[in-house]
């Protein structure tokens, strides 16, 4: 469909060519048939032009056809005069027929074009609807707003084949060559950017801008809602932890304090027998140690919960660290049997040795606390595949299945004995995970528990001179 001067010129050429062709054909048939009958051939040319070029061109073709017929074939020939009256009527009929046929053909042509345009538009709408449905599910599939916007654009791109970008900003931020179409959003101002030459042109982008804006509003709302929910959940958890902490303080801090205060009062009499005096001093010593341990645990836990563990990683000989932990626990449990199995040299692991030692001494301490006093606690370290695994096994009563999930939570005790602060395993998990390791519980009710701590040992340092 040409346009402007070129279109008109092209149409004129076609009109002249059609009339010339008709004239040629009539000239061949002229000796055989009367001119009134042959005018149908000119009519065909008019129809052809009407179909190809529309009504105006058809009118021109009819006029040119009449003139040519008159000039070439009607007596007197080669003059624009008509001798026979019958021929005047024939030409007039031809002209009217040409106009009517031309108009009909042009209308049919316009209708066909319109139908084709509608079909194309319907197909485009259908494609856009599918695209938007895909975009909607992309928004619902992810949680984070920027991920949602990215998948929105990706979904539009994969269904339309043209690259688009969605950005939230008050002023458009198009890069070179992009067109920017504003999105009529309610929550935050945004723009959709596209390539002007792609199949999704400005018009299509403008059409999908409103539904896209609706989706973006949903995404923004969802993010706001998610943030509020997460904050509420965090606040709730913090509340639970604080309540549990207050509970622990009221019990676990008060009992050693009471013992110390009582022992101090007991030391007042001057004539106290020496062994009573020694016993009271030992009580103060032990209970002060318990208090200190609890305060250290609370401090560690608060660092873990605040994400401030900051391990100083170093090459660690896990066997050496386990030995250190064992030595510190033995000072507190001199009489208790502990089996140590370090099966040969282990690969080094990258971790904070002081934090690892705290993990192992906590686990060994726990194991002793929850085992009968004559049952040995077993500590082993082995290399398994690319990992170094330390296992601490007790012969206690095991942990009931219902409690296994919560033993690593602060105050999530493995039983109801009330032994320990309930913080040790939470601290262990915090330190292990901060150092890139894993901690797992394997427990059999009635037959004791094993805590397995493992660290990756795939990377090893350069050889040692």
């Amino acid at each position, binding site marked *: 469909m040409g346009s402007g001067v070129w279109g008109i010129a092209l149409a004129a050429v076609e009109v002249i060519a059609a009339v010339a062709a008709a004239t040629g054909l009539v000239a061949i048939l002229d000796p055989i048939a009367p001119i009134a009958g042959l005018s149908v051939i000119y009519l065909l040319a008019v129809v052809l032009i009407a179909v190809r070029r529309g009504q105006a061109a058809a009118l021109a073709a009819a006029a040119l056809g009449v003139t040519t017929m008159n000039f070439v074939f009607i007596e007197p020939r080669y003059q624009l005069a008509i001798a026979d009256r019958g021929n005047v009527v024939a030409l007039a009929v031809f002209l009217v027929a040409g106009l009517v046929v031309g108009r009909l053909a042009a209308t049919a042509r316009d209708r066909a074009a319109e139908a084709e345009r509608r079909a194309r538009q319907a197909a485009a709408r259908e494609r856009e609807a599918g695209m938007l449905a895909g975009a909607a599910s992309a928004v619902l599939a992810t949680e984070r707003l920027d991920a949602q916007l990215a998948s929105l654009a990706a979904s539009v791109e994969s269904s339309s084949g043209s690259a688009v970008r969605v950005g939230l900003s008050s002023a458009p931020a198009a890069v070179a060559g992009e067109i920017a179409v504003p999105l009529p959003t309610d929550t935050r101002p945004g723009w959709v950017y596209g390539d002007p030459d792609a199949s999704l042109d400005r018009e299509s982008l403008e059409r999908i801008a409103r539904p896209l804006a609706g989706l973006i509003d949903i995404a923004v709302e969802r993010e706001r809602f998610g943030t509020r929910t997460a904050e509420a959940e965090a606040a709730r958890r913090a509340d639970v932890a604080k309540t549990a902490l207050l509970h622990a303080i009221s019990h676990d801090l008060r009992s050693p304090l009471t013992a110390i205060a009582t022992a101090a009062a007991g030391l007042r009499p001057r004539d106290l027998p020496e062994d009573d005096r020694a016993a009271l001093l030992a009580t103060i*010593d032990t209970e*002060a*140690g318990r208090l*200190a341990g609890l305060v*250290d645990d609370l*401090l*560690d836990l608060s*660092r873990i919960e605040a994400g401030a563990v*900051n391990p*100083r990683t*170093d*090459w*660690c*000989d896990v*066997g*050496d*660290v386990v*030995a*250190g932990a*064992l*030595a510190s626990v033995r000072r507190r449990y001199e009489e208790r049997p502990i089996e*140590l199995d*370090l099966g040969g*040299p282990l690969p*080094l692991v990258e971790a*904070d*040795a*002081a*934090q*690892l*030692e705290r993990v192992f001494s906590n686990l060994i301490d726990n194991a002793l606390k929850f085992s009968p006093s004559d049952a040995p606690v077993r500590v082993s370290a082995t290399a398994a595949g690319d990992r170094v695994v330390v296992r601490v096994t007790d012969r206690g009563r095991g942990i009931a299945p219902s409690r296994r999930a919560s033993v690593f939570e602060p105050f999530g005790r493995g039983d109801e004995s009330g032994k320990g602060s309930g913080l040790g395993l939470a601290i262990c998990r915090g330190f292990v995970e901060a150092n890139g390791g894993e901690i797992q519980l394997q427990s059999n009710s009635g037959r004791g528990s094993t805590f397995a701590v493992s660290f990756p040992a795939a990377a090893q*340092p350069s050889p*040692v*001179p």
Partner: protein
Amino acid sequence: VTESGPRVLVVDDEPQIVRGLRVVLRDAGYGVEAAASKQEALDAVAARAPDAIVLDLVLPDGSGVDVCVELRRWTELPIVVLSAVGDEHEKVRALDAGADDYITKPFGTDELLARLRAVLRRVGEDGNDAGVTVGQLFIDLAARTVTLDGAEVHLTPIEFGLLRVLARHQGKLVTQRQLLREVWGRGYETETHYLRVHVAHIRSKIEPEPSQPRYLITESGVGYRLVEAP
């Protein structure tokens, strides 16, 4: 106040702790002075140097690490640092800045007195290159030999080098950096895996039960000490 024994400067801003330490240290035969801040500590040492310092890492006007750095500019007097759980990084910084040992709060007084004895003994024995005895182990620094229960132990030059540094500071904590620098030289201070490997080798030769060492003790993440474990 009689001041026959060694004089110890206690640097801590907690009056209760200072009071407790004063009693404990006097009882053990030490003369005691106290300073409550970084500045007081530096002034006290400048006025009259004590024989040893017990230094809290958290002071109202700064860190005990700064005190170590300042003092090490001009004096080698022994420093024992008091640290709490959570102070680990400061503790290692203090040791690397020249502190001789540390003790974690809350501490038993026996432990504190043992550390003080160890750092003071080192000063007394400086220049004594004859040999060091730890339990059944004898390290002859002059002859460069080691015997365990009278039988000679064969160590590689690097193993002996490590053991010699630890023996010279017998009972005292030697940091990883210091060991690496003294045995391998400058530039090797962070190659801690050298220590892991060689310490394991030394233990297999001198320890009755290498997996549960009695003599060559690891302070996880800090360093090593040569001591007869209780």
